[in-house]
């Protein structure tokens, strides 16, 4: 069904963003309330149309720009898009409300509100995009918004570097994604996601295209080996991190993988890449999270781990794992956003996020509740949504049937669950417990009590995580209808709070016990751990520096700054290319077929012209050179005349006369002595190069004069000249009549050149006057002092 509503909503986001960004000085406190409006509108609309969409009638919107090039803005809202839209607008609204309290009266609030709104619109476009190129555009828009938001604190070098790193990694990944999508589009002839999946192309290029797509999705969703930008992105304000870097943007890669997996998961490299990168991210993120002292960084590494889990689930592409992936995605968005907002509230209240220094958070009951509920969901403790979805994930993986990749995924997820429990417990204890180790603990009692806008949003999200678990059956059914949009077979899925003693429950229990044990065993070492820079970060930084210094070195060598050298290189290339062609293929130059000379007189005139031409070089004085040039020009007029071109001869003669006059006028006031500039190359090199260029041009001309295959248009012009244009001089008729349009262009060039001369000279004279004024010489009174120019 067609509807323009999606486009209107995106437009509303864009308008709000522009209003916030442009009017940021006047908007002030109104900016965040204003920014909630598009979120609320979208959320409401999605609830209204949700029923129809889930029944299997996707909504589409299309704006064609350049049809033949497939440049069409095409959106399609199916069940999955509905879910993501609800998450984006719902969490977006909560984050915006939270921001009211978080940013208070800070100057940059309107800018952040605008950028967040811009991002939200782009993100919605991304998840609703059906056109492959539409997807790419919104994909890159989110990268740019993320860059600007990470760099909010633009006076901090760390924030700037982190923003740039995130932009470069996700931007480069975006290009990889584009290459992959274009290859898929060309191979299948389908330029929409829905069409592509239906076509299920199997060309030889498809595996390569999919690898490119997976590289793109891995960068965006912070998967190994590109995960390193995400912790750096924590330089952004906490609401931004909560929204972009845990709940929405980092899901973009997962969204694309989820859409493609049902069709492409069985293609060669897909599952191995997904599983290897995903499991590596799960383990790496989990281990690194244990070593962070900053609560936000610990959460960020945890996000890498959780994203790995979702990536593995949706990437494996079986109906059961796809269903579980969608479910975990929802649970993760809820508990991770709750976590981030809670940490933001803690930070805002106490002024620190250091796990070693925090005290007294548990005495703020609403905040403590949020943290505990979010932690329970993250650690998959019953009866939270985190638990029931993790159960679904383990069950789907236990199902097996997809070879070694499934086994590796299962083992990775099991170990990952243990790690998740361990770092969650550590985080919860760190935030809620009273610090005993730090010398300078920070207590909440010392600070203001957080207001409702800071406490409400995380609590809502945390409670949703709890409620979703308690209402596992209806939630599971809704999720099944949503997952059916990806793979109809996933519509069978269900969530259970309790479905008997089975291996999945066993693994969950093992994770809880093992994780808690692990936390207890390592609680002292991790309290003092100093997280090292990750190998990926180091590798990235080295690569970046090498690229910069390498390009600088290449530029330094090739762009030495000497303009004659540049020109020499260009000319040498021309001479070499022409010369090589003529030398290799002797047939190109058939001198024997051409006359030596058309007449004896021609030889005499040509020799004289050439001699006066050489005279230009030999002349020691500039006037001598100008006159030698004039002489060769006059003689050239004779060459033209011998060729049968009296018009040219006349014009050449007249032009040469005027040119000499112009030379005399200008050269008269150029320097008396030349400043001695170092030559860029020895004399013989310059002579050799010049002769080589001359010979290659002559060789080219000789070749070209023998290659005419079609008769000249001249015959027709000559025939039509008198009857149609009323003139007998064919050359003149061509200029003013047959090719009059060309001439109109040429005289325009003349007019511009004339105007240019007038203005340049006028400007030069103004300059001179100014100098005189500065010297104390009056303009009008030139007596007594010679102008500067004559010294």
């Amino acid at each position, binding site marked *: 069904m067609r509807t323009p509503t999606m486009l209107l909503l995106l437009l509303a986001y864009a308008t709000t963003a522009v209003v916030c960004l442009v009017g940021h000085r006047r908007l002030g406190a109104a900016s965040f309330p204003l920014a909630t409006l598009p979120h609320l509108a979208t959320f409401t609309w999605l609830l209204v149309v949700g029923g129809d969409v889930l029944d299997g009638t996707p909504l589409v919107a299309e704006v064609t720009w350049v049809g033949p090039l497939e440049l069409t803005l095409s959106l399609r809202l199916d069940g999955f898009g509905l879910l993501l839209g609800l998450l984006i607008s719902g969490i977006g609204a909560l984050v915006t409300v939270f921001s009211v309290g978080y940013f208070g009266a800070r100057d940059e609030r309107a800018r952040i509100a605008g950028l967040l709104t811009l991002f939200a619109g782009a993100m919605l476009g991304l998840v609703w995009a059906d056109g492959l190129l539409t997807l790419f555009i919104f994909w890159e828009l989110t990268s740019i918004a993320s860059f600007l938001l990470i760099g909010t604190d633009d006076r901090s070098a760390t924030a700037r570097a982190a923003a740039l790193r995130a932009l470069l990694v996700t931007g480069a990944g975006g290009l990889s994604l584009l290459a992959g999508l274009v290859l898929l589009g060309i191979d299948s002839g389908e330029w929409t996601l829905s069409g592509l999946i239906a076509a299920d192309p199997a060309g030889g290029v498809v595996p390569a295209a999919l690898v490119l797509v997976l590289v793109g999705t891995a960068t965006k969703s912070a998967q190994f080996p590109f995960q390193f930008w995400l912790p750096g992105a924590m330089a952004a304000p906490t609401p931004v991190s909560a929204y972009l870097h845990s709940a929405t943007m980092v899901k973009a890669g997962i969204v694309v993988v989820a859409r493609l997996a049902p069709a492409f998961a069985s293609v060669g490299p897909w599952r191995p890449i997904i599983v290897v990168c995903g499991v590596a991210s799960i383990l790496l993120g989990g281990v690194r999270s244990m070593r962070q002292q900053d609560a936000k960084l610990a959460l960020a590494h945890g996000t890498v781990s959780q994203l790995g889990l979702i990536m593995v689930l949706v990437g494996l592409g079986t109906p059961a794992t796809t269903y579980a992936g969608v479910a975990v995605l929802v649970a993760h968005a809820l508990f991770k956003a709750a976590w981030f907002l809670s940490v933001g509230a803690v930070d805002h209240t106490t002024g620190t996020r250091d796990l070693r220094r925090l005290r007294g958070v548990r005495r703020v009951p609403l905040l403590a509740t949020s943290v505990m509920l979010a932690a329970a969901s993250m650690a998959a403790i019953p009866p939270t949504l985190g638990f029931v979805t993790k159960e679904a994930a383990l069950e789907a993986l236990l199902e097996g049937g997809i070879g070694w990749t499934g086994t590796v995924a299962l083992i990775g997820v099991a170990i990952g669950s243990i790690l998740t429990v361990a770092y969650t417990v550590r985080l919860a204890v760190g935030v809620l417990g009273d610090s005993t180790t730090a010398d300078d603990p920070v207590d909440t009692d010392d600070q203001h009590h957080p207001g409702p806008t800071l406490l409400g949003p995380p609590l809502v999200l945390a409670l949703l995580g709890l409620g979703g678990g308690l209402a596992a059956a209806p939630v599971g059914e809704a999720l099944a209808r949503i997952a059916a949009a990806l793979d109809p077979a996933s519509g069978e899925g269900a969530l259970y709070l309790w479905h008997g003693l089975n291996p999945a429950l066993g693994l969950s229990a093992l994770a809880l016990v093992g994780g808690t044990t692990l936390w207890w065993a390592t609680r002292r070492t991790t309290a003092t751990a100093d997280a090292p820079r990750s190998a990926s970060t180091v590798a990235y930084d080295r690569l970046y520096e090498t690229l910069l210094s390498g390009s600088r070195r290449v530029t330094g060598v090739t762009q030495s700054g000497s303009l004659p050298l540049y020109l020499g290189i260009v000319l040498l290339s021309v001479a070499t290319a022409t010369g090589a062609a003529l030398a290799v293929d002797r047939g190109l130059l058939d001198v024997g077929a051409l006359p030596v000379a058309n007449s004896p007189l021609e030889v005499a005139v040509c020799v004289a012209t050439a001699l006066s031409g050489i005279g230009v070089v030999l*002349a*020691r*004085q*500039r*006037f001598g050179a100008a006159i030698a040039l004039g002489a060769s020009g006059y003689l050239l007029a004779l060459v033209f005349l011998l060729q049968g071109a009296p*018009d040219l001869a*006349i*014009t050449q003669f*007249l032009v040469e*006369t*005027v040119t000499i*006059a*112009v030379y*005399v*006028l*200008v050269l*008269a*006031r150029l320097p*008396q*002595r*030349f400043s*001695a500039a170092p*030559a860029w190359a020895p004399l013989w090199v310059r002579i050799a190069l010049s002769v080589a260029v001359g010979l290659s041009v002559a060789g080219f001309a000789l070749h070209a004069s023998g290659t005419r295959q079609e008769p000249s248009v001249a015959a027709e012009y000559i025939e039509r000249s008198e009857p*149609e*244009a*009323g*003139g*007998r*001089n064919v*050359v*003149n*008729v061509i*200029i*003013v*009549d047959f090719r*009059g*349009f060309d*001439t*109109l262009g040429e*005289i*325009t060039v*003349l*007019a511009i*050149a*004339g*105007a240019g*001369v*007038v203005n340049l*000279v*006028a400007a030069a*004279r103004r300059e001179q006057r100014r100098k005189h004024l500065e010297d104390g010489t009056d303009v009008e009174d*030139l*007596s*007594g*002092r*010679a*102008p500067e*120019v*004559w*010294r």
Partner: protein
Amino acid sequence: MTPRPTVTPSTILSLTVAGLTPVLVLVAVYITFRGHNAPGGGFAGGLIIGIVLVLRYLTDGAEALRRLPVDPVVLIGVGLGAAVLTGIAPLLVGGSFLESNVWKLDLWPVGQVKVVSSAVFDLGVFILVTGVVAAILVALAEADDEASRGETTGGTEGPTDGPPTRTGVDR
């Protein structure tokens, strides 16, 4: 050193050139119009006017160029305008851009005269080329004049300490 053209104007030469100027202008116009049937045309005609200006400059100095009856920049505009109008005019009567037309008129006592619309175009070229060359010469000559006024009244500070040498150390 090249002799500076403005320093010693010869009265005889000056009078000769001044007397020849109208003749040369007529020649230029003639060359322009005969271009349709014989070597010549607007470009050549305009350049001839340019040479007339060079001659006037050589004999009378920059003063001669400063007292031109028409501003050269105006000539450029008029010439370009005429050419464009020749292009547009056929559009008004339903033709195509720059379409040309030939009219044969009986003019007593000259006899039959052939009038070609593209002659107007060529006339535009003539005026424009005249304007461009004149503009270049006037601009450069005025600058030269200003500089030379400085030189001739330059007392002892100017380049009078020995003839300036043009050592060709240019590389």
